[in-house]
């Protein structure tokens, strides 16, 4: 058995910018995350063989799919790369069973074997009752299941998922996400998943590669991401508070003067230009504002309250703005309203200090989203 792996290196001009990415993965799920139009889908298309990169090397296991230097460019049908397209791309003129059976040629050879394999796949993905239905007659969540069953039917060596959740409503999304996590665990394939939404991939990916304008901004595990976003852009994706400023050592602690205003005290020593990260769930909201701002507080009006299940995310329009996650019990007690002036507060132990410009992408301005 060869090791399951996928290694991708691509350079390809797109309309607005140059695609320039590189990553490797084993039998794990890697999420390519970035804003719409960042070139994520082009990466998937290049791996699947639907886009011919100008320059690049793509190797799956021991098979070279693309090597532009050696003029290797396997056609899509010879790559054994399973792709689940955005919104499914199911064949509208074929039944669900026919869609799933489509990929099962030339193997298995006999009709009976093929039928049995289709039945197995339909049952495995809980779509046996839909076998005779047309794609137009089933729900979005069901379509995604059919698309996955079809993609894995040929036992691909690599699996690609293009925005598997974005076309679904929030209820279906949670359900499909849970199913997908289970199936991806069972399949145990090198899987590349593309999404414009960081939250969508949170439960699915082992690793995340953030892409913007064709470039890799950060490649890290999910935990590393939340701990140490490489830039304000990445932080905006993960939803953590990210401040920039200048640190000066104060014994075992450090004091960071934020830009444009505010002071953060961290329980770790630091000096020079830094970025400060505070998780939203570490931020407490208190009504009112004090006359003189104290360290580790930011005051301002409530600009947005978004409820998610029991908790709520409260955005405070301070300079710089800060987001707090408020637990349900506290939310009721606060009775927050838009425009109400509040103070966001956190402790020095909750502050993470990252070297500013410590990553290759420092100095890049985050794009307006």
């Amino acid at each position, binding site marked *: 058995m060869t090791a399951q792996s996928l290694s991708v290196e691509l350079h390809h001009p797109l309309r607005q910018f140059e695609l320039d990415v590189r990553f490797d993965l084993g039998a794990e799920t890697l999420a390519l995350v970035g804003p719409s139009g960042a070139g994520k889908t082009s990466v998937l*298309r290049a791996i*699947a*063989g*639907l886009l011919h990169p100008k320059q690049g090397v793509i190797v799956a296991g021991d098979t070279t799919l693309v090597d532009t230097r050696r003029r290797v460019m396997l*056609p*899509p*049908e010879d*790559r054994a*790369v*399973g*792709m689940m*397209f*955005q919104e499914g*791309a*199911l*064949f*509208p*003129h074929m039944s669900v069973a026919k869609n799933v059976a*489509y*990929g099962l*040629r*030339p193997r298995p050879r006999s009709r009976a074997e093929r039928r049995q394999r289709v039945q197995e796949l339909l049952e495995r993905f809980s779509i046996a009752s839909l076998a005779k239905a047309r794609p137009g007659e089933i729900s979005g969540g069901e379509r995604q299941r059919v698309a996955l069953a*079809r*993609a894995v*039917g*040929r036992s691909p060596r690599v699996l690609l998922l293009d925005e598997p959740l974005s076309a679904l409503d929030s209820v279906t999304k949670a359900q499909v996400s849970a199913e997908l996590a289970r199936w991806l665990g069972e399949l145990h394939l090198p899987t590349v998943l593309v999404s414009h939404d960081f939250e969508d991939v949170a439960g699915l990916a082992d690793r995340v590669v953030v892409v913007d304008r064709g470039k890799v901004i950060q490649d890290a595990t999910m935990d590393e991401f939340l701990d140490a976003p490489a830039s304000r852009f990445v932080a905006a994706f993960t939803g953590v508070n990210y401040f920039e400023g200048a640190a000066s050592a104060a014994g075992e602690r450090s004091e960071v003067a934020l830009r444009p205003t505010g002071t953060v005290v961290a329980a770790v020593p630091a000096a020079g230009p830094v970025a400060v990260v505070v998780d939203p769930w570490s931020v407490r909201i208190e009504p009112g504002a004090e006359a003189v701002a104290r360290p580790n507080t930011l005051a301002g009006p409530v600009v947005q309250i978004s409820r998610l299940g029991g908790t709520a995310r409260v955005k405070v329009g301070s300079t710089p703005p800060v987001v707090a996650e408020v637990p349900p019990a506290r939310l009721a007690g606060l009775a927050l309203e838009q425009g109400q002036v509040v103070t966001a507060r956190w402790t020095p132990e909750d502050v993470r200090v990252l070297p500013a410009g410590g990553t290759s992408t420092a100095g890049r301005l985050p794009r307006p989203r």
Partner: protein
Amino acid sequence: MLSRRLQRGAAAAITAIAAAVLIFFIGLPLLSIFLRVPLSTLVHQLHSQVARDALAVSLKTSLTSLAFIVVVGTPVAHLIATKRFPGRNVLATFLELPLVLPPVVAGIALFAAFGRLGLLGHQLYALHIHIPFTWVAVVMAQSFVSMPFYVRQATAGFASVDRQLVGASRTLGAGPARSFFRIETPLSSRSLSAGATLAWARALGEFGATALFAGSLPGITQTLPLAVYAEFSALNFNATLAMSALLVAVSFAILLVVRIAFNWRVA
């Protein structure tokens, strides 16, 4: 200012008048072909050698033209619909040109290319290939004027197929050929059949280019429209009407069968 109700009434009235004019304008002439002479005379006239020969020539040549058009036109339509290449617009425009040319000009063009004194005349003569005034010339004339009807529709059909479906087909192990026959063709079957029907109907009714390039030799190149004209010139009015009726009936049958077969909506 008109009230809403009045406006709706006026719109309905205009539609009704337009429909009546159209039915009168198209229906009456067609109907009079059948009503002008007694049905027994029509049937009798159809048993004539001229009519039977003309029907045979018409069916043989128009079906051959249709086959040629589909075999040659389909790959070209697919190319125009799915690929971007230099000269694509020029090619598409070229293929549409016979739509706007008078058929007589088409006949002259064919003569200028394949006639005895035409561009390829010498070479063809040397190979003992003689095209004008043969049934092959009829097929060429019909194909020349009918091709655009098929190519246009087929191009629109292939262009309307979501490229992502073709991509999905490829990643599922199907090569370009299997993707074409299993995905692209079925998904554009309506356009393909509509185009084929139009092209066939146009080939069946072809007159000008055929008359010029293939002549009107009974049993060889004399199609139904040419036979109608020949009988008309000879002042055989009953025979003219009989063969016109035949042409109308055959055309109607073709259109109806195709329409029912593909369950077209009237809209």
